[in-house]
């Protein structure tokens, strides 16, 4: 499983810290955050099947039509690596994947860090997910027509970047590349998901990191998650947008460090 998910471990620590990327890119989303924990933890980053450098041939549309499939992989990976009493850091849809995984195999993770979580993106009655059903349908239609060019053709040709010399050309060229078919399906799985039932009491310490101006996981949703998990904490980061792990790594690191 570790090989299939392109898992990389680093650091020296008794306790394991597993970083899970969300919808969009791959384990590189954590490159500014994970290293900060290498002193005290054994950090592990990985790519879900279908993302990054994972084994694309292992992608099974039926399995990954729901977040359960992804959660199974997380459980399998954690078990294979012998994780127990570990920390799970999940970004975006990974936050819910982590919750599902933690419920499936209670001994694996004793701490859950949910970055920009949302249990459901589509509004439902009183619940405000942030998107109407029409909007999500529009999104999925858009993907079906490949309109955004979420295809290999559209992956940018990066000519090297003086602002980020530590970034190898290879990484730059491969960052955020996903098989377009799989990307479409992952989008469907993510945005049509309804995992409010997976909130609720859980035998683990839970931290929610919320950003401002996050179109995908707005503040009201973060609050909802916090209220639904008794004993959980919510920290409002001084960061905008949906990816504080990239746009505000220092704040993200600080918030996590204060909690673990």
């Amino acid at each position: 499983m570790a090989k299939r998910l392109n898992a990389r471990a680093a650091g020296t620590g008794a306790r394991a810290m597993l970083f899970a990327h969300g919808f969009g890119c791959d384990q590189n989303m954590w490159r500014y955050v994970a290293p900060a924990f290498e002193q005290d933890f054994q950090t592990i980053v990985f790519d879900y099947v279908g993302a990054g450098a994972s084994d694309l041939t292992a992608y099974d549309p039926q399995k990954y039509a729901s977040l359960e499939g992804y959660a199974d992989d997380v459980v399998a990976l954690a078990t294979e690596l012998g994780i127990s009493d570990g920390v799970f850091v999940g970004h975006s849809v990974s936050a819910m994947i982590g919750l599902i995984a933690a419920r499936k195999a209670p001994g694996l993770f004793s701490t859950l860090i949910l970055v920009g979580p949302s249990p459901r993106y589509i509004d439902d009655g009183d619940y405000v997910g942030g998107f109407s059903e029409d909007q999500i349908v529009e999104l999925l239609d858009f993907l079906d027509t490949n309109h955004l060019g979420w295809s290999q053709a559209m992956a940018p040709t990066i000519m090297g970047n003086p602002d980020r010399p530590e970034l190898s050309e290879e990484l730059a060229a491969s960052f955020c590349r996903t098989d377009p078919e799989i990307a479409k399906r992952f989008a469907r799985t993510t945005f049509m998901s309804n995992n409010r039932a997976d909130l609720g009491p859980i035998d683990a310490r839970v931290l929610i990191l919320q950003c401002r101006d996050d179109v995908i996981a707005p503040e009201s949703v973060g609050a909802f998650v916090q209220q639904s998990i008794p004993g959980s904490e919510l920290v409002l980061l001084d960061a905008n947008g949906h990816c504080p792990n990239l746009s505000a790594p220092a704040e993200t690191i600080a918030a996590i460090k204060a909690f673990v």
Partner: protein
Amino acid sequence: MSEVEAGASAAQREAGIDFERLFDVAPCGYVLAERNGRIIRANETFAAWTGRPAEQLVGKRFSDLLSIAGKIFYETHFAPTLHMAGSFNEVALDLVDDQGAKLPVLVNATGGLHDGEHVQILFAVFRATQRRQYEQGLLEARDKAEATIVSERATSELQEQFIAVLGHDLRNPIASIASGIHMLAKETISQRGARVVELMSGSILRANALIDNVLDFARGRLGGGITLDRNAREPLEPVLRQVVAELQSVYPKPTIETRYELADPVDCDRMRIGQLLSNLLGNALTHGAKDQPIMVDASTSRSELVIAVSNGGEPIPPQVLERLFQPFFRGDDRVKHGLGLGLHIAAEIARAHEGMLVARSDVKATTFVFTMPLDI
């Protein structure tokens, strides 16, 4: 206007370039934004596309002006990549104007500008309506083509199954007639009657060969391939002799001369090799000169089995020779009998035995040679 400003403007006027104006009326949209996407300044062109004055755009997020899909894509792909790699080019997005109408655009962005210590993003936005339509058209054409292929494949499979069933079902009545003819031949019958029976025999033989070939072909197309039932115990020569005898009785001319030097056993499917010889011989009898004998030569050496069939007559031109073993290929001679499957099936039988079938033709003779490795 201060002296500096006057000087600057003068310099500009002298050079003839008003950069401020250029920025605003450029044939593409320019948007300068903070690192978090909030617009600092947008040019007139871009503002016009959004249906709002440029001043109104200041402070909005770039992603606010995109469709839902664009907003999500911005957060999950665009912004992270800008952070990581510093630029992101050729992104196809939809701008949404103040009426809600969508404008397809292509966006290049670079996140490497500096204003003091702040990093800013510069977006260059290009209209892409026609391009998008063109792409749509291409995608639709491709989908249609793919659908057509699928449906044609299905039809083709149905046709081939039909052929297989037909061939299969035809065997019974043909076998029945063959038996009947055999017994009629034993009745007391006039000379003419005997001749009729003989001719009917020939027809049935041809019909059988035809069905065999058609069935093999249909099975091959449906993925079956030529199946072999190898047997190294039974002798091959009697089978070959029978084939020659049967065909000679149907086609008394030209004479078929034979030479057999087969050291049995030969590990092969005798029926199939018989079928191969029958197809080659049938071909020679149909197309060869009627006044020159046909030679059938079958021999084994230590390492291989060789069966050669030669006939006289017009040489086969090279371009025809090339295509001889293709299914349904009948050369220029539509008049001559046959579906054009016989040689193709013979070649497939050769292949199934790990051997090969080659043809050569000149003024002296046309010869088909089948070679097959002996085991090992």
